[in-house]
């Protein structure tokens, strides 16, 4: 596998970690969890309710891992930049994302909400890629949000109403600046596995590739009580021309 643009430039030592290695690391956590839960299920000390709960968790963990493999395949596709772009209602996408992740959030005791958005124009995007970016951000936010916490899907018009910014805002633990700098480096370049706790930043790299394919960009804002990850896309003026 040779993810475009993710090769470390400085070579040698830890910097030599390959994209395959990074992807393997990213998939290790769900596999570890699935194995542990399967071993526990095989035992005879669980109640029926616990068995049902563990079975549901295994399904949801598998789905998360499968989303990542599907995104990786898509990011690797030589046709990535040939995806069709069309006017897309961003509110519809945020609702789709909320619906798709509802079970996962509920099972983890968190809430994914869509902040009320008024008069948002369509953006020029590929529906599937935009959905995948927001799924990535919202999935990532799960790790950084306190139990019983809320993650918000937000949208706003910026740059004199020429660009829509769709954000996923989490309310997690404070991230020290040094760590934040390392984390945001991953927005454009997959770095070595250890640079970011919990994750290699592969999801951010994939999201960046998808955003670029739509002439958009991704970014992040650090708050005192969490972070926002966003994608910016140009407003579609197609309707205005009619």
């Amino acid at each position, binding site marked *: 596998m040779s993810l475009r643009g993710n090769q470390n430039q400085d070579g040698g030592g830890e910097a030599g970690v390959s994209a395959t290695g990074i992807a393997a*690391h990213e998939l*290790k*956590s769900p*596999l*570890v*969890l699935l*194995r*542990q*839960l399967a*071993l*526990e299920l095989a*035992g005879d*000390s*669980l109640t029926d309710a*616990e068995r049902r709960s563990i079975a549901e*968790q295994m399904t949801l*963990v598998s789905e998360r891992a499968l989303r990542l493999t599907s995104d990786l395949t898509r990011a690797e596709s030589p046709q990535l930049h040939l995806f069709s772009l069309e006017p897309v209602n961003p509110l519809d996408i945020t609702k789709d994302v909320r619906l798709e992740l509802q079970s996962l959030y509920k099972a*983890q*005791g968190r809430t994914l909400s869509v902040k009320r958005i008024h008069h948002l124009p369509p953006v020029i995007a590929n529906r599937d890629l935009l959905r995948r970016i927001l799924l990535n951000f919202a999935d990532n936010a799960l*790790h*950084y949000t*306190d*139990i019983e916490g809320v993650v918000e899907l937000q949208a706003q018009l910026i740059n004199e109403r020429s660009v829509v910014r769709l954000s996923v805002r989490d309310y*997690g*633990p*404070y*991230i*020290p600046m040094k*760590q934040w700098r390392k984390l945001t480096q991953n927005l454009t370049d997959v770095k070595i596995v250890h640079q970011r*706790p*919990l994750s290699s930043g592969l999801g951010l790299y994939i999201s960046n590739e998808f955003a670029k394919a739509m002439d958009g960009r991704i970014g992040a804002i650090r708050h005192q009580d969490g972070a926002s990850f966003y994608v910016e896309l140009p407003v579609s003026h197609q309707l205005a021309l009619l």
Partner: protein
Amino acid sequence: MSERVVVVEDDIWLAEHYMRVLRREGYEVYHAPHAIGAIEAIDQVRPHVILLDVLLAGTTALVLLHELQSHVDLAKIPIVLATNLADQIDIEDVKSYGVRRMLDKATMHPEDIAAAIRGAML
């Protein structure tokens, strides 16, 4: 009175798994999803053992280990590391932080968790 364990693990389902396993073994178990919450929990609970993940969201386990070492009373609490990076960490390098046992998440079995906690208290 049962022995107390604080589980520091940001994956909620893995944390629940540890807690089920340890409660079945008779331990009193508390959970902290990140290092900041862990400091509070450890301070309140004064556990007999800490079961600690390495790659945490926010502040890492290493920062937590340093913090614990800076408190005379907390520095003596034995620690069990449970990590995906077991093949890259030499337990000898982290013994000075109170780490007594290390679990490789990729190969451990549920019964290994309780065994490691028991072993750490010896």
